C-alpha cells in the first residue's frame, strides 16, 4: 500500500502487549488556528521522521500534500478504466441489440438476442446514432466510479472514529486545523510526541486520544 492508502483513522489495529497494561491509545492531535502554522507543523512532523501522520482541516489546504508527503491518488486511473468500460458497454449494447453481427450461442435465450432492427431504412450498425447512448454510459460509469471509489479509498463511510469523540476536534470542520500522529507510528511515544507537537510554533493545545 502506498502512504496515501493508509489514513490514520480506523479502529481495527491491535497491539495486545500494551493494551492489557494501560488504555490503548489512538494517537494525538495538536490544534492550530491558521494555515501557515499547520503547514509549518506538518513539515516539522514529517522532518522529525513521523510517518503515520495526518492533518484535519475544515477545507483543503493548498500545499498540505507536499508538507505531509501525500502521494498522488490512483483515483483518476480507476475512473479512466471504468469510463472505458462504460464506453464498451454502450458500444456492445447498442450494436448487439440493433443488429445481429455477433455470433449468438444456441444457449442464449431468445429474449436476450439482438436482431436486425430495421427502421426508416437506416443501417443496422448506425454508429452515429448510437453515440449519444455510448457517450452517456461512459459518463455515467466514470462519474459513479469517481464518487464511490473516492469514498471507498478514503475508507468512508466510517461511523465510529475515536477522533470524533473529542470535543476539541469538532472545530476541525469549523475554523481549526489539527495535526494528528497515529499511535501506530514507529516513533510514537505519548509523552515525547505530545511534547514535540506542543512546542511547534502556533500550537494551541495537544490532546491524546484513547482508543476504545
Amino acid at each position, binding site marked *: 500500500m502506498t502512504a496515501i492508502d493508509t489514513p490514520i483513522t480506523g479502529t481495527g489495529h491491535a497491539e495486545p502487549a500494551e493494551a492489557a497494561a494501560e488504555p490503548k491509545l489512538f494517537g494525538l492531535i495538536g490544534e492550530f488556528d491558521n494555515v*501557515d502554522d499547520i503547514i509549518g507543523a506538518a513539515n516539522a512532523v514529517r522532518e522529525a521522521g513521523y510517518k503515520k501522520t495526518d492533518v484535519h482541516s475544515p477545507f483543503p*489546504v493548498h500545499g*498540505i500534500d507536499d508538507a505531509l508527503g501525500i502521494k498522488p*491518488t490512483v483515483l483518476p486511473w480507476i475512473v479512466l478504466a471504468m469510463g472505458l468500460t462504460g464506453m464498451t458497454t454502450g458500444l456492445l449494447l447498442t450494436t448487439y441489440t440493433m443488429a445481429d453481427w455477433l455470433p449468438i450461442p444456441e444457449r442464449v435465450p431468445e429474449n436476450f438476442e439482438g436482431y436486425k432492427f430495421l427502421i426508416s431504412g437506416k443501417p443496422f450498425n448506425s454508429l452515429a446514432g448510437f453515440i449519444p447512448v455510448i*457517450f452517456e454510459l461512459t459518463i455515467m460509469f466514470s462519474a459513479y466510479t469517481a*464518487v464511490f471509489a473516492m469514498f471507498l479509498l478514503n475508507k*468512508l463511510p466510517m461511523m465510529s472514529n475515536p477522533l470524533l469523540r473529542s470535543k476539541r476536534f469538532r472545530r476541525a470542520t469549523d475554523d481549526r486545523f489539527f495535526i494528528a500522529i497515529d499511535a501506530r507510528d514507529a516513533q510514537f511515544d505519548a509523552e515525547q510526541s505530545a511534547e514535540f507537537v506542543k512546542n511547534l510554533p502556533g500550537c494551541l493545545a495537544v490532546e491524546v486520544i484513547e482508543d476504545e
Partner: protein
Amino acid sequence: MAAIHPGSTIPTVDTDNTVDDPTRRAPLVTGGLDFAGVTENVARVATTRPDLLWWSGFLVLSAMAMGFFTFIGYLFVTGVGIWGNNQPIAWGFPIINFVFWVGIGHAGTLISAILFLFRQNWRTSINRFAEAMTIFAVVCAGIFPAIHVGRPWLAFWLFPYPNQMAMWPQFRSPLLWDVFAVSTYASVSLLFWYTGMVPDLATLRDKAKSRIGQIFYSFFALGWTGSARHWHRFEKAYLLLAALCTPLVLSVHSVVSFDFAVAQLPGWHTTVFPPYFVAGAIYGGFAMVLTLAIPCREWLGLKHIITMRHIVNCAKVMLGTGMIVMYAYSIEFFVAWYSGHHFEQFVFRNRPLGNYTVGFWTMVFCNCIGPQVLWIKKCRENLWWIMFAAMCVNIGMWFVRFVITVTSLSRDFLPGSWAQFHPTWVDICMFACSFGLFGSLFFLFLKFLPVIAISEVKTVMPEAHASHHGGDHADAGKEDA
C-alpha cells in the same frame, strides 16, 4: 479549489465588491466574516427552528405539490384526454414543461462544473443551491415525459432489459437518447451535489444541537474528519466530476434538442438547435438562480456570502447567454429565408403573424427586450431591476418552448392536418402545481441542508492561503478580518 489565489488584501468590512480594480481581486466574502463566521452564518439556518415565513411558504408549496400528485392520479385513472393534446399537437404542455424544467437545471451544473473548471471562484457561494435547484428541476422535468407516455405504468419499457416480448428499445431514436441523457444527468447531478455536501454535512454534524439532527447529519456525513488524505482524493474526485459533468450538461440539452431537430418538421429540422437549446437552458437557468438567490440571501441573512458581486456576475452571464439566444432566433429566421424552402419560410412567417402571435411576441418581449435593461450598470446593481429581468426570462423561456413545440406541430406540411392547440384547465394547473413540488423540495433543502458550500467558501477567503515562502507572517490572514 486546488489553484485558487484570491490574494485580496482589501479590508472586507462594508466593501463594495462590485467594483473592478485590476490590481487586486475583489473579496468574495464581505462583512468581516472569518472562518467561524462563515460556518455560523450558514449553520444557523439548519440548527435553528424555522420561522413563520418558512412554515407558511412550505405549507402552501407542499399543498401545491399534493395537488400535482392528485392531478397525476386523475390522469392515471382517466387518460391523457384530460389534456389539450390532440393530433397533430401530441406533445402539448407535458413536453413544453419537460424542456422548461430540464433547461432550468442546466444553470446549476454550469455553475458547479463549468465555472469550476474555469476557476471562477465566485461560484462557491451559489453553487450549492444552484445544484439543489438543478436536482429539483430535473425531478419536475422527469415526471412530465413519464406521465406523457400514455400508459405510464409501462414507462420501464424505455430501458433496455431482456423481456418476454424479446424486444429491445430503438437506439436510433432521440427519444431513447433522452432516456439515457436525462437519467444520467439526474443521477450524476445528485452524486455531484451530495459529494460536495459531505464536508458541510460534517460541519452541521458538529454544530447540531438536537439529538435527531446529530444522528441525521452524522449518517449522511459518513464519518468525514477533514483528513488531508481524504481532501486530496476528494478534490481529485470533484475535479473529475466537474470534467465529466461539463460535456454531460452540454449533451443533455443537445439531446433534448434532437427530439425536435431529428424530426423533419419545418421549424424543428435545423442544425442550430443543439447550441441554441443549450444557451437557452443556461439563460433560463440563471434567471431561476437569480429568482431564488435574491430573496434567499435577504431572508436567510447570507448577504455577506452571496454578495452583490455574485448577483451581478449571474446577471452578466444571463445577459450574455441571452444575446446568444437572440442570435439563434435571428439565425433561424435568416436560414428560413435563405434556404428558399417554402415550408420553412411559411413556418417562420407564421410564428410572428400566424395563429400563435401572442406566444411569439411574449417570447420576444420577455427574452429579447426586457432583459436588455441589464446593460445599464445602475439597473444591473439594483435588485428590483435584476428581478424584473429574471422574471422576464423565466416567463420568456417557457414561451419559447411553447412557440417551438406548438407552432410547428399545428402547421405542418399538409394543411389538411392543421389544428389548433387549446390547453385545458388540467394542463395549466399541472404546470402551476409543478412549481409546488419544486418549491417544497427547495424549502426543505433551505431548512435542513447546508445552503452554502461552507468548505468551498472558506477556500476562497484570503486567510485560506499560506503566505508565500515562509517567514514571520502567521497573522497575515487575520488582518483582513
